């Protein structure tokens, strides 16, 4: 493991959304850590709790969310923070980019004004300096003719440029940790790869840690160092991306890889995972994947499987995963 102090550390995070009639158990005990310079991908389908986990790091959740566990960002306990220090944290040492930049950017201000405003709020510099910094940032995210784009309103930019502008805004205070919530999902294929490459380069240049939430294995393969696969509110597999893509441990990851359409023969059906993800208002008592799993045994349906570490740096929460004697000792 990395010896440096982790940028963010989550222990046994549980998030429930309490509604009038039912409670959604979105996250059910998630633990992970991110170190400086590391890109962690949280991979999961809709409803797996991946976005909720990410938002918990900044406590960006609606009031009806009940958060339990231990969330530390930069050594501070996020869950116990005052609203004021939380504001300083957001956009300061930690910042976030979203799937839909149109909702994150204010339509009545120009891009330059918005980035400048963020810079001024966190550094307290004057307007001219903030504008110069904004220009610098737009150049950093490779927006062509940045000078002109400073005075553009968000709606005047194309989807890809808007996403770049949002990244620029997120980087305005040199964050140590960047949280990305499916930032490329709404983009076209040719633009998505540009943004992915940009994020990868910026992350390496600035030495940031990054947590990148996605549902797309291909995207994870392009950007991740480590991958945490989430299913039904739990991390079912964790490990370096190369190992996970080559030899997935958990049956869900295996199924996901097999069912992702990629150069399969057209003559045969794809190996689909049967069934649908569980309803998180009534999560299954044991392993969340057991109802769809071909390898499920009786014990899977009654008890949540313990984490197993078959290889250094890899984890899988499945009873079918064999742990070699040496590693177990």
């Amino acid at each position, binding site marked *: 493991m990395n010896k440096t102090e982790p940028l963010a550390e989550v222990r046994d995070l549980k998030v429930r959304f309490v509604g009038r009639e039912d409670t959604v158990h979105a996250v059910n005990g998630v633990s992970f850590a991110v170190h400086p310079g590391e890109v962690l991908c949280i991979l999961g389908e809709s409803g797996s709790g991946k976005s909720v986990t990410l938002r918990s790091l900044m406590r960006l959740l609606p009031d009806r969310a009940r958060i339990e566990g231990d969330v530390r960002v930069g050594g501070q306990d996020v869950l116990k923070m005052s609203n004021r220090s939380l504001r300083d944290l957001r956009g300061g040492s930690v910042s976030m980019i979203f799937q839909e930049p149109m909702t994150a950017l204010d339509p009545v201000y120009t891009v330059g004004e918005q980035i400048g405003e963020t810079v001024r709020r966190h550094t307290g510099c004057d307007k001219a300096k903030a504008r110069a910094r904004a220009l610098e940032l737009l150049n950093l995210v490779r927006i062509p003719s940045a000078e002109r784009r400073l005075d553009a309103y968000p709606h005047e930019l194309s989807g890809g440029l808007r996403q770049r502008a949002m990244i620029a805004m997120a980087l305005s205070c040199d964050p140590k940790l960047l949280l990305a919530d499916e930032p490329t999902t709404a983009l076209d294929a040719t633009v998505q790869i540009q943004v992915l490459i940009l994020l990868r380069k910026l992350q390496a240049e600035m030495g940031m840690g990054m947590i990148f939430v996605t*549902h797309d294995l291909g995207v994870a393969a392009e950007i991740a160092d480590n991958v945490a696969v989430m299913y039904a509110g739990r991390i079912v597999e964790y490990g370096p991306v*190369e190992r996970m893509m080559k030899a997935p441990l958990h049956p869900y990851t295996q199924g996901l890889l097999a069912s992702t*359409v990629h150069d399969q023969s*057209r003559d045969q059906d794809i190996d689909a995972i049967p069934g649908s993800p569980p309803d998180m208002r009534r999560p299954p008592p044991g392993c969340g994947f057991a109802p769809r799993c071909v390898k499920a045994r009786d014990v899977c349906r009654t008890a949540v499987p313990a984490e197993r570490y078959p290889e250094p740096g890899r984890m899988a929460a499945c009873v079918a995963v064999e742990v070699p004697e040496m590693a177990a000792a």
Partner: protein
Amino acid sequence: MVMMDGMIPTPTPPADPRDRGGALQPLLIVRDLIKHFPIKGTGGRAVRAVDGVSFEVRKGETLGVVGESGCGKSTLARLLLHLIRPNSGELVFDGDPVDEPHGISVSALRRQVQMVFQDSYSSLNPRMPVRDSVAFGPYVQDKPKAEARDIAVNMLAKVGLNPDQFGPRYPHELSGGQKQRVNIARALATGPRMVILDEPVSALDKSVEAQVLNLLRALKRQFNLTYVFISHDLNVVRYISDRVLVMYLGKIVELGPVDSIFSAPRHPYTQALLASRPSMDPSRRIDDPPVTGDPPNPIDPPPGCRFHTRCPHAQAVCSAQEPRLIESLADDRHIAACHMHDPESGHTMAVAGSA
């Protein structure tokens, strides 16, 4: 009656009694379809969503349509069903011109062509049990209520949903994959010959996407269907299509057999699109973007070749002249609209490109 044709599994599906032109007559011929959406208050400017598109859909094939947002693929889907009226252009369904005095009417077309929409919260009526949503089509097409209900029950079973269990449910009680199965059942309930699938799996999770793709393939065999499959996902299109049509800003840039397109793409845009797919291999990551910039706004598409603003091989001729759809010398069924494949275009790479 119609939908029972495919019921007996035989190696060669029996000839459809509605087949008029024979196997070689394309099921649908599209000629010079144009649809512009005028924008109010801009003095006659318009979104040129579909701008002169011609192709044909052969009987029994799956024609994949790919392109990025704003390329006009969804507009094209709606034009094929006359859900929107084209500004100009012609549709010929199995030899009969659509919506013309000597041809077939739009409602006759809609008895033979159906559409499956992207799964979204709006694809099914939230106040209707899904069984009734499926039964609506046959009911509208003059089936008695009881018979329409029977058809709906059958169709739900066909798409893998237990009719007793799922039929009385409302859309919000179904998962995304289940809703999409209902959407498919609804489209097939009227016994169409051709189904237009507009991003049918884009909103689904990967594990469910595979189920739905398998189902679509099985149903196609069973009911002897012809598909027009619209998607932005090249991997999915590659898996499901026989031929592929690539669109860019309202124009066809390339059209050909799927293997030929994926192994030897001719148009620089298709090449870029293919190269932009994530590699799925962390040790072979893409280091440089295959193409820079965003697709231009379809309101004022660039003159000449619409891709020339982003094309690495663009030359003067590309912005001056619109390329023709050229059949290549090697394969007459694979066409691309690029000056590099037109020996007479004047592009310096023209000869090398088409070799």
